[in-house]
């Protein structure tokens, strides 16, 4: 597929603990088209999150290769990988992973700061993003003052801070009630409509049904 923004070739991931080696992923070759809405589904502990970490450059494969927007990331140095991660990928996690000591706005600004965006631009862009996720009035709130749904919306805003082409989400609604889940899905549809590539790791069948493409992972392999 010529328009693949994410591509893996015979990717495997092993974890060694003493003499025991656990195979988390084996021989995974896949392509995710640019602008697509993809869900990675499968039972718990079968390698879904590991796959997400590898295609997002958070981890390195034991074998095989990963391409992210044309760059082969499994062999580039840590610094280049971090830079690429900061601008090409936005991560959203199940437990929000906001920096607790910072306000909602500062959490978003931090992502931009790490990408070298000037402070003035950080402020205007973060307010824009907060408005987009419907939380303009929560700019000065700390994560502990926000509900789970609100925190996840801030996490999405933060993931979008550097205008990445890819959003990688690990169980983004796994910790939310159905009303909050619906809000998040609404935002995701808007983002997909804007051309973002969305990859979601989920158990949630409703979310999976909304995806254009579903990748099944079981026992560390594609099915």
């Amino acid at each position: 597929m010529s328009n693949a923004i994410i591509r893996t070739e015979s990717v495997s991931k092993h974890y060694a603990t003493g003499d025991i080696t656990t195979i988390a992923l084996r021989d995974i070759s896949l392509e995710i088209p640019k602008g697509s809405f993809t869900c990675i589904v499968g039972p718990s502990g079968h390698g879904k999150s590991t796959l997400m970490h590898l295609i997002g450059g958070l981890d390195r494969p034991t074998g095989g290769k990963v391409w992210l927007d044309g760059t082969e990331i499994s062999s580039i140095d840590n610094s280049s990988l971090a830079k690429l991660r900061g601008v090409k990928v936005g991560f959203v996690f199940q437990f929000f992973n906001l920096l607790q000591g910072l306000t909602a706005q500062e959490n978003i600004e931090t992502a931009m700061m790490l990408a070298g965006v000037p402070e003035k631009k950080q402020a205007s862009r973060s307010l824009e993003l907060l408005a987009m996720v419907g939380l303009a009035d929560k700019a000065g709130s700390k994560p502990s003052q926000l509900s789970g749904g609100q925190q996840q919306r801030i996490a999405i805003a933060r993931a979008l801070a550097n205008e990445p082409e890819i959003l990688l989400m690990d169980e983004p609604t796994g910790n939310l009630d159905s009303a909050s889940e619906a809000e998040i899905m609404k935002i995701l549809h808007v983002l997909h409509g804007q051309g973002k590539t969305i990859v979601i790791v989920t158990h949630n069948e409703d979310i999976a049904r909304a995806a254009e493409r579903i990748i099944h992972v079981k026992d560390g392999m594609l099915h």
Partner: protein
Amino acid sequence: MTLSKLVVRNITRRRGRFVFTLLGITIGIASFVTFQSMGGNLKKEIYRETASLGANLVVIPKGSCGFEQLSVLTGDQMPTNITMEEIKKVAAIKGLTVVPFLAQKTAIHNSPVSVNGILPEETRKLKAWTVADGAYFSTGNDRGAVVGMAAAKQFKLNPGSVVTIRGEQIQVQGVLNETGGRDDFTVFLPLPLAQRLFKAVDRVSYAAVKVDNLTLTDSYIEKINEAVGLGVVSDKQMLKSVLSIVGSVNITLQLIAAVSVLAAAFGIINTMMTATYERKREIGILQALGAKQSTIFTAFIMESGFYGLIGGVSGVMAGLITSIVAAPYISSNAFTTLVKGSGTNAAIDYKLVIGSVLFSVVVAVAAGLYPAWRAARLSPVEAISYE
């Protein structure tokens, strides 16, 4: 948002730990500054005391060591082994002005104080004393006392006040203007009176000798040796010998200070290591957001450097205040008399101030290197999954 703002937020989030870590480095640097400041002033004070002695040679009992030479400068109690007969023999050598001193100690209101028996007119040839209040001795047979300014203030003495020395009531007849040296802390008595009170009739502790021709100093030493069996040291020899004693005291003080700073450095390492574990997940989040290893490393180094900067500034302030405020209260002995004197004249040494703050920052940054390296090397996945 900037990295430095993020660092400040991280530090101030845990206020208790911030304060206690800061206290560690503050105490370390404060003791470093106190000892350095006192040690530095001690050296200056020795130079000043040697100069204010006004003598080119000092006649001391044969076999006297550096400690006795130091006592000449500090006004500490000394043996009374030199007879007036011997002093007269030295004084008979042409070209010398010989001024004997009886160096003793007594207590006023249970506080130790130096007492010097002097020949009033001869002593004034050596010392540039002026009288602040009352009168100087009129003859060598006066029955009164003349006191230094600091002693007068400490014991609330004025002309007309009475002090009891060795059970005898002595009236203060004059108070000297401040000299900035140990004379300020001394009670002066006419030599015959002091000799009687301290049961050293016809004996003195040492004699300060001024030579008419400095180029003949060596020949004067020989002549004194021929005339009497006493020890003779030049002011330069005495300075060298006393400075070597003080040098070893300074090294000891610096070692104590180094231990304090080292303890503070370990406090920083401990705080930063704890931060690495506590903030493991946050480090993972920052990595997921695109933070490079160098960024994480820099953030941790900035944090420990911040401890060093704030701790250094507060430590320097605390150290200077301690050295100035505490010095006059240090009980008097051969060494601390000079420290005591130096405290009253302590000036802020800007080299010491800037040097200590820089030292604090360098120590703190060095202490932060290992925790920063550990934090920077965390795997993003491991860090972000940390519960």
